[in-house]
């Protein structure tokens, strides 16, 4: 059974929106985001509510940019990392739009895009919003330590992105087409260090990219840009290394990672780079989308990656399964 689905000429991106936090606003691609927050608490009482507000603001911004009403949207698909996708569910209280919550860790944005594309391709829906969010402070307290706890960050650690990106997909011809997508399988190579998520996800990214290239009969250099979600610098090196063994050559294409793009790694002291469900969605909807509109890239493969840990599984000594989904975009 083929993992890759082709959407013919039926799914396009109509509009995107992205909002990021103050630290991301100091990063190298800051200029591509629609809005930058000065206060990452957004006037809310808790960071979880702040993340919900961030998610709601981004969807609202998307609707405004697309000049659409809530009634025009068939469906919203979204997710985040907090508890039972707390922040997305609560964000959607503000909207009169049907909603499907989704969880695929930091690869959630990929999962939402693929689902939306299939719904539109099937002809059942016309306009679907895909959005995911993450927040440094809500992720940190859930997965690591309290914010005021004096712990040394290992050089392997990554920095959860405070940000949200949203895409509006529709069936009317636009500038950027969703050409095909490969749904990832769960891959576990036995990495158990929760501080080394890039290494846990790299094998999943490699397998998904491998299946995608095989099933589309393409070489890696078919794409002007291959962007993984949040492998970080070390994870991306590992991906290139294990991909070489499988015969994938990345040297002729621009292969990078959203977590590397969003921060100045050295200067901003973010370890291996950014991570989180908001990382690939903010970078895609801000930076990559605009670069494609500017025609800097024609064919782009976005590969959001997710480390599927839970608070319980890591305490029980389990290894970290990874997942990655690949979506191929084409500038018309």
């Amino acid at each position, binding site marked *: 059974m083929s993992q890759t689905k082709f959407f013919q000429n039926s799914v396009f991106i109509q509009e995107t929106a992205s909002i990021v936090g103050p630290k991301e606003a100091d990063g190298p691609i800051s200029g591509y985001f629609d809005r930058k927050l000065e206060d990452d608490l957004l006037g809310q009482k808790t960071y979880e509510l702040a993340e919900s507000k961030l998610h709601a603001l981004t969807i609202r911004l998307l609707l405004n940019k697309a000049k659409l009403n809530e009634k025009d949207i068939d469906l919203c698909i979204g997710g985040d990392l907090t508890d039972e996708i707390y922040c997305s569910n609560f964000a959607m209280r503000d909207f009169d739009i049907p909603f499907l919550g989704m969880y695929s860790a930091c690869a959630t944005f990929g999962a939402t895009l693929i689902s939306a594309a299939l719904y539109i391709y099937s002809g059942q829906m016309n306009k679907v919003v895909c959005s995911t969010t993450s927040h440094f402070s809500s992720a940190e307290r859930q997965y690591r330590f*309290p914010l005021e706890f004096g712990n040394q960050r290992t050089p392997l650690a990554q920095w959860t992105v405070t940000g949200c990106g949203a895409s509006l997909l529709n069936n009317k011809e636009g500038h950027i087409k969703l050409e095909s997508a490969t749904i990832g399988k769960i891959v576990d190579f036995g990495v158990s260090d929760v501080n080394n998520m890039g290494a846990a996800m790299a094998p999943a990214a490699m397998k998904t990219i491998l299946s995608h290239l095989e099933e589309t009969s393409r070489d890696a250099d078919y794409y002007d840009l291959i962007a993984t979600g949040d492998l970080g610098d070390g994870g991306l090196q590992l991906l290139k290394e294990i991909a070489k063994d499988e015969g994938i050559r990345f040297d002729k294409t621009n292969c990078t990672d959203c977590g590397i793009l969003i921060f100045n790694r050295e200067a901003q002291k973010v370890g291996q780079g950014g991570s989180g469900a908001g990382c690939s969605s903010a970078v895609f909807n801000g930076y990559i989308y605009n670069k494609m509109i500017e025609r800097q890239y024609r064919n782009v493969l976005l590969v959001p990656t997710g480390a599927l840990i839970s608070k319980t599984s890591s305490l029980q000594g389990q290894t970290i399964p990874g997942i990655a989904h690949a979506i191929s975009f084409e500038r018309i």
Partner: protein
Amino acid sequence: MNEPNKEYLKLIKEKMPKTKHFSTIVRAFIIGGLICCIGEALNDIYGLIFKTLSEDEIKSIVTITIILITAILTSFGIYDKIGNFGGAGSIIPITGFANAVVSPAIEHKKEGIILGLCSNMFKIAGPIIVVGITSSICVGIFVLFFKGAF
């Protein structure tokens, strides 16, 4: 399906950046030494001020002072920066224990005073109290049986 991929795990060890042993160890030494010197200095100062108190009483006041200072530094978000710099140098002194109790208390206030702040206060440092008291009782009982030897 779930067999660890040994070759890959080996590759991770080769490729991923290593912890900088020298700088982390030097920093731990400096911060740890400094925190202990502050304790010693407080001891000397209190010894001069409270001439009537016994050595043990002065030690207790020093402990309270160190914990108070840590609680204040933690509340203002300074101790986590010291911690990121000093590593074990700021974890192993009693200040690290105090920080491990104060920081979840601050963090979990949002879930309420009782079920948030109070319940989570010992989320990180609870094992220290449990293991400490349990092991001290074991030592006591051991001494009880071999009292003659002491």
